[in-house]
């Protein structure tokens, strides 16, 4: 589904990703862990086409297409979804209008007619229930005045609405209390299917108790330096990242 080969990326001339390789197949959940500044968020930004970053070298293919040639909206409509670490507030744009525009743009991209008003409302209702989102939030402007937890829940709600092939969850667990974490994880698990895949970027092992990964990777200094199964996450939780750093620098 997704192949990343020797990916290098800069921001303001500073190299953050330094030759990253990763392969994700349908049905898989990959967790990416690593210390601050390793390049975890840069990876999610580069995959979704954030213009702030420059890709200087490497290849990324998604479902057979050269991802790096596509605009952010094309990547989204191909089925890549990012749950933002810091969801953006957009005053004056209502959630309903925003979601309807997004759904219809996706349908247009796939040569489908716009969604009918009744179908759209039914879809909204269903997916709101999935993430236990307050009705009131859907009537407000996008993320405006939402609490940290509500913003993250809103990300999962949008993910449920758009039904992506590949979802990237960038520190979705940060700032969540235990109940919100359970709801968010529950939403993610319910959306899991053999055709879809997820990349979960996280600092802590906590979220991985709720969403069980097939692979755990350690990102350090712009590269994936260690991969393993879910037990690697536990090991990191116990031992921290220092031993990894020493291992890498020792080489």
């Amino acid at each position, binding site marked *: 589904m997704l192949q990343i080969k020797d990916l290098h990326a800069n921001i303001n001339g500073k190299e953050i990703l330094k030759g990253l390789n990763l392969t994700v197949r349908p049905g898989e959940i990959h967790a990416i862990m690593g210390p601050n500044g390793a390049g975890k968020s840069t990876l999610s930004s580069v995959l*979704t086409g954030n213009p702030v970053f420059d890709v200087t070298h490497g290849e990324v293919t998604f479902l057979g297409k050269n991802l790096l040639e596509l605009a952010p*909206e094309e990547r989204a*409509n191909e089925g890549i*979804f990012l749950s933002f670490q810091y*969801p953006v507030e*957009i005053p*004056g744009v209502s959630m309903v209008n925003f979601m309807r525009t997004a759904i219809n*743009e996706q349908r247009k991209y796939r040569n489908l007619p716009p969604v009918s008003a009744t179908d759209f409302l039914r879809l909204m209702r269903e997916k709101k229930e999935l993430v236990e989102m307050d009705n009131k939030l859907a009537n407000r402007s996008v993320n405006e005045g939402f609490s940290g937890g509500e913003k993250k829940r809103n990300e999962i709600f949008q993910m449920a609405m*758009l039904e992506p092939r590949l979802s990237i969850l960038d520190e979705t667990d940060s700032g969540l209390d235990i109940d919100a974490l359970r709801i968010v994880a529950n939403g993610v698990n319910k959306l899991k299917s053999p055709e879809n895949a997820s990349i979960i970027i996280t600092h802590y092992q906590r979220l991985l108790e709720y969403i069980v990964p097939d692979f755990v990777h350690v990102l350090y200094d712009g590269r994936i330096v260690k991969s393993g199964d879910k037990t690697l996450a536990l090991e990191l939780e116990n031992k921290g990242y220092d031993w990894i750093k020493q291992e890498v620098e020792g080489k």
Partner: protein
Amino acid sequence: MNDGRDASFDKFRALGFPTTQLENYKYTDLSQALSIDYGLNINRLNVPVNPYEVFTCDVPGIHSYLYFVVNDGFYPVNDNRNDTLPEGVIIGSLSEVSKLHPELVAKYYGKLSSTKNDGLVAFNGAFAQDGIFMYVPKNVQLDRPVQLVNIMRSDVDFMANSHNLIILEDGAKAQLLVCDHTVNDVHFVSNRVTEVFVAENASYEHYKLENTHNKTTNLSTLLIDQKDSSNVLANVITLHNGLTRNMIEIAVNGEHCDTTLAGMVIGDKNQQVDNFTSILHNKPNCTSRELFKYVLDDVSKGAFTGKLYVARDAQKTAAFQTNKNILLNRSAKMRTKPQLEIYADDVKCSHGATIGQLDESALFYMRQRGIPQKEARLLLMFAFTADVIEDIRIDALKDRMKLLVEKRLRGELSKCEGCVICQ
């Protein structure tokens, strides 16, 4: 109307047309627009157009009392098109009414405008011969909006001076929607002065929608006088124009008044809009709120001045002013000047002015959800102007304005929509 003409002319001779040397005009250079040789209709020739036949309203469903000023003359009312006005209400030609009710007109005409030291206002006083007159007697509330459509129609470059006089007695209530349209592809200057007297407990709403072509110079002066416990809302929206200068002054001369002044500008190409506004709090215990928003593209220019004056006696004034502007590229220009003069010590006043670009992080967020960049920009611009549209209290106009603003932002509105004369 002739009484003050000589004095106005003398004042104009002393002042001349305003230049950028004057503090109040430093952002808007009128010299080029006024250098053209314009016709003036001093001999009161009729204009061969029947607006009732050719005009279809920009705001369907508004169901207004509809009146036209073609160039500088009030067009005779077509009674078949308007329902009967409530008893005592007079709406008609200022020049006619000044003959029928000379004492009523004399009591108000020029009382605000003659105090202004402004070349354009003086010129208007010297040359204006007509305009709309509206009188709403005590405790009469108009059941629907009054709509005044200013149409510029001429085969040669033309200047129109008109003067509107609006009087609301105690407890009266009225809404006026002024629409500016141009018909011919010649240069126009309109220099219009509107005086509004809002008596105790009266409520007045003034909407101005400008949708003219880019050879139009629209100079407009709106002067409002508010008495005790009155309520005024003015909302001026420029969707399409050439060069516009709106001078708006609301003098709050009574206690417990509420004033809202709002406006929006969507400019592109070489359009220029200058809103020069003043709210004068002369009495205590009043509230005012001012909100202006501009979206400027290409080489368009915007200017905003928000003068807020609070007199020494105007204690317990609560006045808030906001001007926010988005420049869509590097060549558009915006000048903003909040100007607060507060002489009272027990007041709550604030102001804020910003000039910026569309929020890049919001744009990326929307694109990540599959919304193309162009559409995302549009959504952000539309959201930006939404609160000015919320300051419209006529539902049909509000709904229509949402549509017109969206079309304008999409670049689909290059001239007055629905006006068959324009086609």
